[in-house]
């Protein structure tokens, strides 16, 4: 009984760690620009697919990953410069459609360049699963969780200890004030998109050995990441991590104990429930209505 529970928990945490990383990507961009970037999933796709493609050229895995991450960052910056910046005064819905358009565009290009097949990325270290209390944990899962944790810590340090990080936070709180103290807000926004792309592509390549990778893997991951981010409270880093893990665990527990057919429905019902009682998510700011 317990080993079963442990198994569901491990599974949930692995899936949840992925969602959390996607959700963090949403959070960074949301914090800097209040845009929900529906193209976030494409960064994961680029991370995985570019790694496969660079490795196919004979480049060793480590360097292939670095190149793939750089490519994703480039795409992230380009996305901000070419698509988001020109539409800065647009409606929320319009921005949603722009990022959806961007995601379709990136996916379309990827499909032409890389083809439509699914690909395997070799696990970082061995294929041997780890056994713990009667349950099995994939060694790559440890990588996902570990890299996730490292990234979260690195982000905290970045946003609280470094000048650039604080500049991004400052811009998110008050754009005008940030401009007044000499922060180049356009630069900061570009940075935020680049950073978000970095996060996404690292996540993409880390989970690829578990989930495989293909040109269209980004859609659902982005959606789940958005769910996780909204559940945790948009803009809250802690919320993104908790939201992601919670979502993953609920999905796997539902699949294990209730119904695998309705696990997504249960996850979506849960977010509705959370929002009914906490309209700004679990850790969202309680801003006061200003009149």
């Amino acid at each position, binding site marked *: 009984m317990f080993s079963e529970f442990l198994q569901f928990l491990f599974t949930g945490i692995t899936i949840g760690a992925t969602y959390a990383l996607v959700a963090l990507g949403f959070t960074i961009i949301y914090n800097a620009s209040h845009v929900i970037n529906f193209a976030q999933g494409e960064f994961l796709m680029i991370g995985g697919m570019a790694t496969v493609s660079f490795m196919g050229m004979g480049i060793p895995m480590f360097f292939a990953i670095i190149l793939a991450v750089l490519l994703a960052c480039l795409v992230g910056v380009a996305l901000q410069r070419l*698509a988001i910046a020109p539409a800065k005064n647009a409606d929320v819905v319009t921005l949603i*459609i722009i990022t959806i358009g961007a995601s*379709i565009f990136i996916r379309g*290009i990827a*499909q032409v360049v890389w083809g439509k097949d699914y690909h395997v990325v070799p696990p970082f270290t061995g294929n041997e699963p780890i056994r713990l209390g009667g349950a099995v944990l994939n060694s790559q899962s440890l990588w996902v969780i570990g890299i996730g944790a490292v990234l979260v810590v690195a982000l905290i340090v970045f946003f609280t200890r470094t000048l650039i990080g604080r500049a991004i936070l400052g811009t998110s709180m008050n754009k005008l004030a940030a401009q007044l103290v000499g922060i180049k807000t356009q630069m900061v926004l570009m940075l935020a998109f680049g950073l978000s792309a970095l996060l996404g592509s690292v996540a993409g390549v880390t989970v690829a050995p578990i989930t495989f990778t293909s040109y269209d893997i980004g859609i659902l991951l982005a*959606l789940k990441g958005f769910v996780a981010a*909204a559940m945790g409270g*948009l803009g809250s880093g802690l919320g993104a991590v908790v939201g992601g893990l919670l979502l993953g665990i609920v999905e796997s527990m539902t699949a294990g104990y209730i119904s695998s057919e309705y696990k997504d*429905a249960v996850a979506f019902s849960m977010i509705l429930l959370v929002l009914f009682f906490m309209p700004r998510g679990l850790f969202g700011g309680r801003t006061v209505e200003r009149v």
Partner: protein
Amino acid sequence: MLQRFIDWRMNYVLVLAIIVFVVPLLMDNPFYFDLATQILIIAATVVGLNLLVGYAGQISLGHAGFYGMGAYFSAIATTTYNWPPLLAIVVAAAVVGLIAYVVGRPILRLKGHYLSMATLAVGFIIAIILNNESELTGGPDGMSVVPLSLFGWELSTFGLYSMFGFEIPGHIAWYLVAGVLLLVAVVVAQNIIDSPIGRALRSIHGSEIAARTVGVDTTHYKSLVFVVSAIYASVMGSVFAHFTGFITPAIAGFDYSIVLITMVVLGGMASPMGVILGAVVLKLMPQFLAGFQEYETAIFGFILMATMIFMPKGFYPTAMNALRRKLGRYSGGEA
């Protein structure tokens, strides 16, 4: 003169009616009628969605859920339980309206992205149920639907009907029915917008705070318009089901919700002609892009992105503003 015409309340309905009834004279191929009928049906759906998104300023990323519910309710009631289609459509609308009211009331207190998240979740749950309850819905492979019939008179795209001494093939008859439905949908929507209810809705978009201070119960009006737009979707979903004769849960899915809201935003929010144009463009796009083969997806994404960047208000309002400016210049300008 022309200037006045452009600004008249219902002029565009007249223009629309002319377009709807002249276009068939230019088409000789049943395939075009088939496509045009679908455009009319989907256009009527987004005219309803526009009340919510364009006028009241509330986002819905799950509206296809209501469309799918309407379609499946009708399909199951008529095909499995032999209800008359008209009854099925009406009951479906009532049921969907009720469901929209029950879920809308709590989620419409949410704002911005949280509202889009909640509507997305509702749409997803509906799609998952339709997909999984295969005993009723036929599951992901879909189910077939009987044609529309009225008091024993069956309307099939393949039939042949005589009206006023003319022989009218089924595909044209369907086109005309869908055309009339669209015109009714537009007139009703415009009437709502021009009424005190419409004023209250638009004020929610303009300034929710102002609306509340003069006594507008914003939660009530948001729910109301949510229900109205869900009923629009339900009715047109039912009609679509009877028209195509075969439906799959994809019509209730997230992708389709995105298509619906894109039609609204692309064509021009808060502009009935705009959203109809949006429906036309988005529905025709796959047909035109079919020649591009593997580049199709990329081009579609590019067009979507570029339009929204360069015409954030959508192309109809952008074009009309340009036209107004031009006319204004000729007539010496107007304040």
